[in-house]
């Protein structure tokens, strides 16, 4: 391979999915109750993008990987304790909200500025990675907006595989309707890839990788610039957790035949 990539993974932090989320109204709009106290994780689809990015960098000599993350500094530090042990990375931290209710357009502007300011980055070699949707806003727009800010017009969403070719081009598989993948060939970087789950499992924690990463992560967190996000014309009129509790009928000690008959009857009911 003659064309090393500069892979930038955009990933924020989200509440651990096992936590109960309760919306409240804060001074700047809707928020989560005890948001700062909730245990957080790296956004799951973006985490897949990070593992795929690290794998790509390992394959192609001279490639580099940055993780650009916008979140409250304290939260980011907590999440980095785990993430740092997964893959070698350089963190670029932006101190700002990670709330799902924050406006994506301004978030994208702040992240694009952070990417431009990375020392040594070559934007012509850029592969901008991230999750195709976050687990907070779940909109799938931030990466596209960053791509447009950076003038990138080769964009892919719902990516499950990237296969680099000898000539610097790469093949991409994107999820489309009907449980299919669209296969595309892109001439090369720069490009935006919003990842679905990819094909790699979560790497095991490696304390040595963690120690090496933390030497650069802590200074990066200290350098994190604050970025305020305003609601700018966006108004929430109602934010609520829907009633989802069902009255579950628990059927025990019923013969298998009877259960099967009941299920078949239920399936056939219009």
């Amino acid at each position, binding site marked *: 391979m003659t064309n090393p990539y500069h892979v930038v993974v955009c990933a924020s932090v989200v509440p651990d*999915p096992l936590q109960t989320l309760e919306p409240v109204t804060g001074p700047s709009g809707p928020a989560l109750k005890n948001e700062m106290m909730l245990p957080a994780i790296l956004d799951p689809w973006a985490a897949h993008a990070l593992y795929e990015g690290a794998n790509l960098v390992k394959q192609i000599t001279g490639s580099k990987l940055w993780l650009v993350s916008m979140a409250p500094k304290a939260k980011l530090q907590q999440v980095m304790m785990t993430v740092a042990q997964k893959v070698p990375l350089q963190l670029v931290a932006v101190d700002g909200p990670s709330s799902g209710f924050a406006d994506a357009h301004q978030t994208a502007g702040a992240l694009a500025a952070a990417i431009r300011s990375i020392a040594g980055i070559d934007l012509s070699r850029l592969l901008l990675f991230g999750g195709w949707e976050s687990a907070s806003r779940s909109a799938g727009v931030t990466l596209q907006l960053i791509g447009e800010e950076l003038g990138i*017009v080769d964009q892919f969403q719902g990516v499950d595989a990237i296969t680099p070719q000898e000539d610097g081009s790469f093949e991409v598989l994107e999820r489309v309707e009907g*449980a299919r993948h669209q296969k595309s060939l892109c001439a090369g970087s720069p490009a935006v890839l919003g990842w679905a789950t990819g094909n790699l499992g979560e790497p095991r924690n490696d304390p040595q990788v963690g120690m090496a990463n933390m030497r650069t992560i802590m200074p990066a967190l200290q350098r994190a610039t604050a970025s305020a996000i305003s609601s700018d014309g966006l108004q*929430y009129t109602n934010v609520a957790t829907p009633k989802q509790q069902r009255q579950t009928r628990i*059927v025990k000690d019923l013969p*298998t035949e009877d259960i099967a*008959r009941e299920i078949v009857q239920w*399936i056939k009911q219009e």
Partner: protein
Amino acid sequence: MDTILFLAQTEENGTLGKPAREALGAAVELNQALSGTLVAALYGAQAQPAADAIANCGALRFLAVAGEDFASARYATDAAACEALLRAAQATIIITAATSRSSRIMAGVTHRVSGCVDTHVTGIATDSGSLTLTRWFYRQRIEASLSRTQRPWILLLDPGAHAAWQGQGASGSVTPELITVPVTESMRRTTVRGTVTPPADQQTIRPDAKLLFVAGAGWTKKQKDGQTHVPEAETIIVDFLKKSKASLGSSKSLVEMSGENQSALRFMSHLNQVGQTGATPRHPKGLSTCCHGEEPHTVGWRFIGERRAINLDPNCGWARGKADVLYVADAFEVMSKVNALLGS
């Protein structure tokens, strides 16, 4: 007065898909509520068949970007086409279906026209001339209604969230105004080479099925005899899918087993995954088997109507208000009997 733009891609044969007709239904309804002006815009290889099909939708103008360069779902050309259509229509509110093709580009188009965008819209309402939409946050765990003052405002309506437009077409009664979009070499850096489809016998995801059947990791665990029975599990599940025409979903743990070289169901992939990092399908009914019903999985069941589960654990997540009925039973035994009954 608002100009409402219905924006849609055309299919390979130039017609409109069901999600696009649903978006048109929402656009027509919104236009009536706001007493606005409706414009229809189409892009793809050809636009006339789609224009014929929606000729009576009430649009004052029909616009199109058509040609071979716009046949494939490619970001650069699709975004340029939609940008040109938005500018030509001078729309204030744009409604389009949240297909994979439009979801890939609409935020980028928003940036180009200095507008704003909301995706995964599940409801559109008007009150005293102002527009409010409903969408979910935190992976279907919090529902919010919101409005924006910024225009143009692009709304991507989730498939299944609105009734499709049912009007009659009229062949040849409208001819769309063709908008010319110059396609440069830099816009052709990506070449779409087609789609990769699973073999017919592994095509287990059926979005229009009445039933979602979810298999959990329990199917691959040791059973009462202390042994695993993965081939038997595969036979039971495939047999059930054939007989019931259900769509197959999975828990995260089961699809990840294949990546970790553990015994796993061969036809299961990440595309089947339902939940936090998977799909949120829409089906009237759902049957879960050998799955604990933990929150990260059940958030993907948000749009499943009636829910039943089979699990050996009477205290699993499904028992805690997430299913209508929980059968505490062995799924191998129950599903074998179900298959026998469905076959008789």
